[in-house]
């Protein structure tokens, strides 16, 4: 799988460089509102989405830039969305937290913690009834596990034996709340037992481990064995959003995790395995930077939605249904 390994690394670079630029653009007030960076967690979205097919449905959270990009949403339209431009993947109405792409079965982008889970159950129900073959993959954070929506959704999916892969991106914090201060039972994967559901855990800093875990769990779900709960153990390197003073965690802890940076470690691995040389790695990085530069250019030049269109698509226009 030589090519695939390179693409895994390439996609991690694309996310990283895109988001670094987003952070700068936030400083320049080109991007506004909330901006939640995925930096440090790239191996999760990249490993997972490379193990899925175009027929699968994807749901994510407000920390979903990476998922959208790897799913194939063009960086131009993601960047334009962050700018609030009409060429954005949600016409500039959603911004960072609400990236959508119907053609790619990318169902967003929700800013209500836990709200994607029940919808994942419904999407899988639709696939089952309409005899489509995809599975539904729902990403959410460790914080969402405390929500009633988690409990109700896992029960429904298991009770109805639906093809849903629930993926916890456990980055150990929900905003400023460490896992152990939110969960009586911090072994999150173990909660699947309460729903008679299978579960597994993977290292969310290792893109191949994630890929293998999702391929495995996804295969199980695809094979009709019912839903599955997968916990990815990961860490966000940046603040929760751009407004966070990070009073709740130690510099040393952050640094410790940064030493496990999924991109540097995977770059080193591919070089060690002889898949790439350093120039090859640098080439991926450069390509990512170029793509980002172009996306920024695109977003800068993109048009605004006319104010006159404000009310379109609240309801479907009459006679258009």
């Amino acid at each position, binding site marked *: 799988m030589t090519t695939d390994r390179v693409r895994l690394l390439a996609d991690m670079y694309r996310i990283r460089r895109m988001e670094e630029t987003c952070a700068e653009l936030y400083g320049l007030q080109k991007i506004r509102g909330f901006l939640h960076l995925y930096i440090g967690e790239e191996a999760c979205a990249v490993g997972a989405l490379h193990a899925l097919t175009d027929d699968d449905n994807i749901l994510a959270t407000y920390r979903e830039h990476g998922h959208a990009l790897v799913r194939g949403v063009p960086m131009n339209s993601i960047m334009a969305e962050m700018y609030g431009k009409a060429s954005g993947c949600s016409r500039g109405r959603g911004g960072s937290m609400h990236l959508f792409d119907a053609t790619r079965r990318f169902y*967003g982008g929700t800013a209500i913690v836990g709200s994607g889970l029940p919808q994942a159950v419904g999407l899988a129900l639709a696939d089952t009834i309409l005899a489509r073959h995809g599975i539904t993959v729902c990403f959410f954070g460790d914080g969402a596990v405390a929500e009633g929506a988690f409990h109700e959704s896992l029960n429904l999916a298991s009770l109805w034996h639906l093809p849903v892969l629930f993926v916890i991106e456990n980055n150990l914090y929900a905003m400023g709340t460490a896992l152990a201060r939110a969960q009586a039972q911090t072994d999150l994967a173990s909660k699947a037992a309460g729903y008679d559901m299978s579960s597994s855990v993977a290292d969310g800093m290792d893109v191949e481990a994630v890929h293998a875990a999702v391929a495995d769990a996804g295969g199980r779900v695809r094979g009709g064995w019912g839903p599955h709960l997968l916990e990815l153990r990961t860490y966000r390197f940046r603040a929760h959003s751009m407004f966070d003073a990070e009073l709740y965690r130690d510099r040393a802890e952050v640094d410790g995790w940064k030493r496990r940076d999924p991109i540097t470690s995977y770059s080193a691995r591919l070089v060690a395995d002889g898949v790439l040389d350093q120039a090859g790695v640098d080439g991926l990085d450069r390509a990512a930077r170029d793509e980002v530069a172009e996306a920024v250019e695109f977003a800068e030049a993109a048009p605004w939605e006319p104010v006159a269109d404000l009310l379109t698509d609240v309801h479907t226009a009459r006679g258009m249904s």
Partner: protein
Amino acid sequence: MRITYRDAMRLAIRDALLADPRVLLMGEDVGLYGGSYAVSKGLIDEFGPDRIRDTPLSELGFVGAGVGAAIGGLRPIVEIMTVNFSQLALDQIVNTAALLRHMSGGQFSVPIVIRMATGAGRQLAAQHSHSLENWYAHVPGLRVLTPATVADARAMLEPALADPDPVVIVEHAALYNIEADVPDGITCDIERAAVRRPGSQMSLVTYGGSLPKVLAAADLLAAEGIDAEVLDLRVLRPLDFDTVAASLRRTHRVVVVDEGWKSGSLAGEVVARIAEECLFDLDAPPRRVCSAEVPIPYAKHLEDAALPQVDSIIAAVRQVIA
């Protein structure tokens, strides 16, 4: 054919299930139990447990699943047993179903129909007697329907399911036993209010479970020589204000009857629109007959005192006509 409101709803659901394989009914006890108001009785035998799908007690979960199913291409009819429990599911209705089309730049449809029973009058006490129509009517992206007649119960579901956007249908539980003759092939315009009784001296505006009380009041008033027009709003969002305004421009007097608590009620919205758009057509201050601002008590005499009644409607009309 003479049928009850309950039968009418069932026939409408049955027609929808027969017409479109993407339609399913889901909710607590819609299947084996036959529906808590017996609306779906027998349907599970005809359509099976996949299409008449009993759910656990998980309002947020199964309404959200309905939303997801709608996004995924089904046409779910999701029954929330009563509006009281719909509070547990509001997030999915308001933050996803209502917003998704606009927020995604028009990419996604959420063609879900959410049905719920509502209202007081059966001594079920405070937690089972809410009327929260104006909460839903406040939210852009939703269509809110209130079938008040057997005919509307029979005919509203089809256009509601044809709507590519989310529709909330609120059924007053006191109506399930009313009966009427309903012709075959009857249709319903889910854009328009209906004039239920033409009249010239007074407009009585209402919807849902209050309609029978208002019609009864109008009959008694007619005997006194007061000729009242009765309007059934039928669609609470988007409100068909034109029909209200047209009536008012003829009658110049209005009473709005609504089982919701007066403060913050849908009746308040109607009166506000009247004041904004028809101020100089009014010959007398508008009046609202609403529920008293109190949790609805169990004891019958107190519950009666808390709710709009034929008497209180007549009293309000007399004030306005005086």
